């Protein structure tokens, strides 16, 4: 039996190979090495939730009718009986309450969408904090960043499809934000909605965007993203024997094929479990879209919530004197929309997209990096990352301010005033505290390398002295703690030469020096072999 099976498998493989010469590729992929760490699977979560989205999405398209034609509801739902609604909304109710398994599929699709975006952000944070975006991977960071933006587009276009009150309110905000763009805003808005909001063509357009355009782009970019991972080889955490010139890990086949295959089912299982237990986006509660009602607790899905938060945070009048809405020659310039919903996300995402180049330029570090940084060994980058996350979380909390006020019995107004100051203060504090913690951890590492672990054993010498025995670190542990680069801040030539003539380009150099100092002025250098030698002498 065994031999017959083997022969059949070999025969099939041979048949395919003789006709496609695929054997070489399979061999290459199967032998490709990957370093092992749990945090390298975060991107996989995003990939798998995308596959779940494709599978469940195909099911949903079989029942969804992307039409804004008005129909009268006649179905099992008592609270919608005889209510006028668009066909999009009616078909969503139909698939939720009349199609077997339809509601479960809708909930799987929506939970997978929340997970998709959350996994992308988590994966991005891992890449950021470990410095995996450095040369030669800057372009792949940009591909990943674009995927993140596309996931927001995919999520928001899907969230709006059922044509319910909640998502309609979201679209109304998007329309307002679009219109705040100077000169072009109104034209863009008319172009998107085919006239005045809400129009009659938006749902079919969003449908095409949601099921064809955006997922197509995401698929293509995922292929490019993974191709670049293969091309660059995967990064690895620091450790004994790991350098910028090698990869220490296990082959793709059979180790990672088995792991990744199994992990897909873990992700699918968790999504299915959550979708079976917890309601998500109950459109039957919100009702069909009608521009007049807005209910309490109107928020977008979490990944757009930060923009909502920025809009809630923005005062209509600055210090109660300067209006944030200017009118001249019959035109209105709405800074109160433009700043929080266009300029702020633009700066935030722009900084994120360009960070690999910003850091390389500021630090002057141009080498290829295949060994990851431990976050503590890049205190400024880690601090910046935590500050960005803090900034983002404050916006998300402000976006949920009514929920927070209601749950914790706080004043909505006070909460907003607190966040208006907090948005400037708390990220700076977060940066400073994080950097201090990183320095502390680096000092602890030095301490361990120089003096070893405390063993808790107290020994009394013959002459009466008490000492605690320290156990030196093993080589692997020491490698981990001393193997990082020690970069000194940029030194520049003086402003005036020896004849007292001012040098050209000095100001620019000084700016670069300041940036370099920002990164490296305060730093904890790794233990040098000499220092280690000296410390060991002192002990014996």
């Amino acid at each position: 039996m065994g031999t017959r099976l083997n022969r059949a498998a070999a025969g099939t493989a041979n048949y395919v190979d003789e006709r496609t010469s695929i054997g070489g590729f399979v061999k290459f992929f199967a032998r490709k090495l990957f370093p092992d760490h749990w945090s390298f699977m975060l991107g996989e979560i995003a990939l798998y939730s995308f596959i779940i989205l494709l599978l469940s999405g195909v099911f949903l398209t079989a029942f969804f009718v992307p039409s804004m034609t008005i129909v009268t509801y006649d179905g099992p739902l008592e609270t919608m009986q005889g209510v006028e609604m668009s066909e999009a909304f009616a078909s969503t109710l139909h698939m939720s309450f009349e199609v077997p398994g339809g509601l479960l599929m809708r909930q799987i699709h929506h939970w997978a969408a929340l997970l998709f975006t959350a996994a992308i952000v988590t994966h991005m944070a891992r890449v950021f904090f470990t410095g995996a975006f450095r040369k030669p991977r800057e372009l792949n960071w940009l591909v990943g960043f674009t995927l993140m933006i596309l996931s927001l587009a995919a999520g928001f276009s899907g969230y709006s499809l059922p044509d319910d009150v909640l998502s309609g309110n979201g679209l109304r905000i998007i329309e307002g934000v679009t219109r705040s763009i100077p000169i072009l805003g109104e034209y863009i808005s008319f172009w998107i909605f085919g006239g005045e909001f809400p129009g009659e063509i938006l749902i079919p357009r969003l449908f095409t965007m949601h099921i064809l355009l955006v997922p197509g782009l995401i698929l293509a970019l995922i292929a490019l993203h993974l191709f670049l991972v293969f091309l660059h080889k995967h990064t690895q955490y620091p450790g004994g024997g790991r350098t910028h010139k090698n990869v220490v890990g296990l082959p793709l086949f059979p180790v990672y094929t088995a792991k990744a295959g199994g992990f897909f089912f873990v992700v699918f299982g968790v999504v299915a479990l959550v979708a079976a237990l917890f309601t998500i986006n109950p459109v039957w509660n919100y009702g069909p879209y009608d521009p007049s009602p807005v209910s309490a607790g109107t928020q977008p899905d979490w990944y757009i919530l930060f923009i909502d938060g920025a809009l809630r945070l923005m005062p209509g009048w600055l210090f109660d004197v300067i209006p944030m809405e200017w009118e001249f020659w019959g035109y209105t310039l709405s800074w109160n929309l433009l700043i929080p919903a266009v300029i702020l996300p633009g700066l935030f995402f722009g900084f994120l997209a360009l960070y690999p180049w910003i850091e390389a330029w500021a630090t002057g570090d141009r080498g290829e990096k295949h060994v990851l940084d431990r976050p503590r060994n890049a205190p400024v980058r880690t601090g910046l990352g935590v500050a960005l996350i803090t900034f983002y979380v404050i916006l998300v909390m402000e976006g949920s301010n009514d929920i927070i006020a209601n749950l914790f019995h706080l004043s909505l107004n006070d909460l907003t005033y607190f966040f208006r100051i907090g948005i400037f203060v708390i990220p700076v504090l977060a940066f400073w505290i994080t950097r201090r913690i990183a320095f502390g951890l680096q000092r602890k590492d030095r301490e361990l390398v120089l003096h070893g672990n405390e063993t808790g054993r107290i020994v009394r010498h013959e002459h009466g002295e008490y000492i605690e025995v320290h156990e030196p670190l093993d080589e692997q542990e020491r490698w981990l703690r001393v193997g990082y680069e020690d970069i000194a801040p940029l030194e520049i030539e003086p402003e005036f030469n020896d004849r007292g003539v001012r040098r050209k380009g000095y100001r620019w150099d000084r700016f670069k020096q300041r940036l370099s100092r920002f990164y490296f002025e305060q730093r904890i250098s790794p233990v040098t072999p000499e220092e280690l030698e000296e410390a060991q002498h002192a002990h014996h």
Partner: protein
Amino acid sequence: MHSLARRRYHRAAPVILVALLLALVTGVAWAISQATSADAAVTTTADDVTEGQKLFAANCASCHGLDATGTEGVAPSLVGVGAAAVDFQVGTGRMPMQASGPQAIAKRTQFSQDEINQLAAFVASLGAGPAIPTAEQVDPALGDAANGMQLFRTNCAMCHGSVGGGGALTQGKYAPNLWETTPTHVYEAMLTGPQSMPVFNDANITSEGKRDIIAYLEAQDAGSPGGFRLGTIGPVAEGLWGWLIALGLIIASTVWIGARSS
């Protein structure tokens, strides 16, 4: 031993026990439903007014004044607020007020329904105002939930949320959750506009419309067809659960898978 046990536990015993339990539950439920429908039909006598005045003097007059005309900056005049306002405020425990704050908090009721009716009779005797609705006016079974949904969406949802789960107002005030509120109290609240709530008189929302809203709220008791509701506070709760539960469970499993290889 075995035969003894068989004799003590007759084969029909579980069935009889379940039947008895069902009878008990039904009986209690019937008694409760009788009690709630009874309090809606109120007839007042002159005695009630006198008793009510005594209760008022002892429990409410320190703020509202002995003649119920209110105290400037402390408590409003109650002349003309009607029996419905008293039944709502005292019946939900909002009055007597526990402490000053952004708004009166609903708490355990301090009086029996008879005492509330006496208080209501006294306040109603001070000036004409809305009366306590009859059982028929608030019966959800007679309402049209679909019409209630549309009325609720245009009139109530901006504060109480899309299905009456509650929401925040300014300066620490809030619109409460409506699922535990009795139909009579919901009706009275619309009629009298307590706290920050506007008055929805019969010209705004007809008596039938109010009953439809009650039917819509009652329909929420069935729960969500999608599973646990996560407080029906919408995408914020969903996002939090997505991060904590879904991503949390999956990351825990990545750590587990990672740990097993090394």
